[in-house]
């Protein structure tokens, strides 16, 4: 038998019709995550063609992008401030009712960012194919699933047929040796990876993150890394499932139980890249050399150590334009750059361990005067846990705002925006121009760096607070 990669194993079990030179493969999708922003036009197509949703049982629907995070608007009967967002939410409720789909709605205690609740509910499992009309679907690859983002037309295909037409992507192994140093997080590692391979380094490929530094990561950390695979242009990112994965899933509401659990374990244990399997491309990295990272430009490949400087690239007009937008000079020190906003949250870093890390830095300290800090848990479950464990109190005592769950300030669709010209250290995934609001200047970093920056009011090295 030929040696296969993890990706090949998952791909092959989902081929309904093999690809030919003339036609792509018909690929079966085990789990379809759906939300309010990229689905309305897909439901319209179903409606206009008289089609039903083929597998409501394989469709998990929630709302996260345009939902308010202010408690009064979620639970207090105060109307949703943004009328277009309210309309989109109502449209999803109507579509779910019409097509017979269970909706994890605005006030549901299971609600949260779609990429956070999939794993939380145990719906995300090793070996599954998972898609969503959202590029950060790559998050779910942390479980050894093949998970990737699709457009709205494809959302319609999956609703109607539970299948997609796909050409087989290439494979890229990212081998990470040694281990992360104390005070350095998974977010720093993935920013370092993107800095190394570039925002198009993964285009056309599915990444498998491998090696000792990856094997010791928690599920939350693996999700942070797989989440940002798309920021390197990759279709998906995967980590082979292991004891850490199984321990995370056991007992979750949608995970298999009893004999089914034992059968699943036996199957999942085989989901590893065979010795001798060949990747199309291999990149090697030393985790021990990674420092706390921060972005300085307008894409997630423009990163440097927090202790470093903005690079100098004379004669590169695109680079110059990015720095002009950011209001940063070539050669400038990143540490001590003043900031006005700090955002902790998103599908990249809105999980409980992220909040714990931020709280460790903030405990007994205050958010600096003139800095607005927003902490938005990734799900209502995480919110309750953070409140029960005293994290929320640490945030509010420090002067941060503590909100209901959602995508929030990662992309500002719900009105949680960074004002033009202001600097925001954000634990989210994209520092594109205007991502957090027109003219907003985003500096991507880990929850620890974000919290340290909030305390100091300037970009800070979290190691000074964690040791």
């Amino acid at each position, binding site marked *: 038998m030929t040696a296969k990669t993890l990706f090949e194993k998952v791909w092959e079990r989902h081929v309904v019709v093999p690809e030919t030179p*003339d036609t792509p493969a018909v690929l079966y999708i085990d789990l379809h995550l759906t939300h309010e922003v*990229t689905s309305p036009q897909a439901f319209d197509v179903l409606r206009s063609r008289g089609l039903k949703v083929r597998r409501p049982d394989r469709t998990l629907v929630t709302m996260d992008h345009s939902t308010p995070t202010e408690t009064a608007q979620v639970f207090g009967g105060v109307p949703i401030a943004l009328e277009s967002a309210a309309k989109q939410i109502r449209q999803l409720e109507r579509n779910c009712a019409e097509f017979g789909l269970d909706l994890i709605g605005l006030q549901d205690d299971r609600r949260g960012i779609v990429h956070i609740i999939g794993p939380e509910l145990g719906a995300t499992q090793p070996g599954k194919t998972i898609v969503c009309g959202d590029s950060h679907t790559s998050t779910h690859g942390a479980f050894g699933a093949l998970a990737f983002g699709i457009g709205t037309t494809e959302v319609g295909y999956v609703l109607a047929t539970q299948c997609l037409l796909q050409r087989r*992507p290439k494979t890229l192994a990212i081998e990470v040796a040694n281990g992360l140093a104390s005070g350095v997080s998974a977010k720093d590692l993935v920013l370092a990876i993107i800095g190394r391979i570039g*925002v*198009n380094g993964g285009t056309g490929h599915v990444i498998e993150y491998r090696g000792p530094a990856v094997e010791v990561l928690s599920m939350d950390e693996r999700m942070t890394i797989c989440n940002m695979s798309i920021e390197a242009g990759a279709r998906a990112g995967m980590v082979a499932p292991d004891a850490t994965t199984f321990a995370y899933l056991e007992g979750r509401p949608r995970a298999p139980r009893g004999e089914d659990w034992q059968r699943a374990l036996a199957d999942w244990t085989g989901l590893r890249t065979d010795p001798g399997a060949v990747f199309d491309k291999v990149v090697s990295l030393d985790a021990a050399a990674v420092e706390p990272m921060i972005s300085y430009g307008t894409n997630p490949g423009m990163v440097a150590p927090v202790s470093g400087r903005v690079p100098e690239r004379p004669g590169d007009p695109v680079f110059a334009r990015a720095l002009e937008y950011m209001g940063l000079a070539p050669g400038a020190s990143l540490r001590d750059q003043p900031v006005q906003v700090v955002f902790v949250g998103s599908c990249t870093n809105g999980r409980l361990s992220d909040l714990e890390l931020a709280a460790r830095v903030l405990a007994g300290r205050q958010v600096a005067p003139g800095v607005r800090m927003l902490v938005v848990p990734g799900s209502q479950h995480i919110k309750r846990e953070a409140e029960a464990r005293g994290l929320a109190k640490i945030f509010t005592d420090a002067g941060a705002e503590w909100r209901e769950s959602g995508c929030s300030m990662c992309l500002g*669709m719900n009105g949680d925006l960074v004002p033009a010209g202001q600097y925001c250290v954000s634990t989210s995934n994209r520092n*594109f121009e205007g991502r957090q609001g027109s003219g907003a200047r985003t500096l991507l970093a880990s929850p620890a760096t974000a919290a340290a920056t909030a305390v100091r009011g300037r970009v800070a090295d979290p190691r000074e607070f964690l040791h």
Partner: protein
Amino acid sequence: MKPITVIRSRTAVMPSSNIDTDQIIPARFLTTTTREGLGTALFADWRYDAAGLLRPEFVLNRPEARDCQILVAGRNIGCGSSREHAPWALLDYGFRAVISTEIADIFRSNSLKNGLLPVVVDEATHGWLLANPGVEVEIDLGTTTLCLPDGRTLKFPVEAFARYCLMNGVDELGYLLAQGDAITAYERRSA
């Protein structure tokens, strides 16, 4: 969708690399529930100033860019968000093809499904197109060639099935629905 064979037009050139889908259409326009009328939001933060007035210096606002149907972009256009609103906005504005050295995966897939043709060219051709904005070029999907004004003709790659669908106005969803028996058999097999 109308069948596509040949697109002939002058080019509009945006040399920035890594033009992401947040630039093509910012998130605040995504609360729409339809796909129509997004052309006004195309490149909104680059096209309009804070008061909502057109910035005369922005390339698409210049008179020579009017009616251009082919956008030549810097390397790696379409990275970032999976929003299909990006090709919808480009099409609604009047573009029918995008040329670059690299086109991000999801954006390319979304574009093909809506009849916006993604054309990947080599560095030298790309450099020439960036340096010569406004030239008239011809994209022939039948022969998968890009024809430059000096007569040079270059092949470009297009996935075979997507090309077939675009040229014949065939609907991919119809094709997938026709696989119903195979899908049912797969579901029985893997249950």
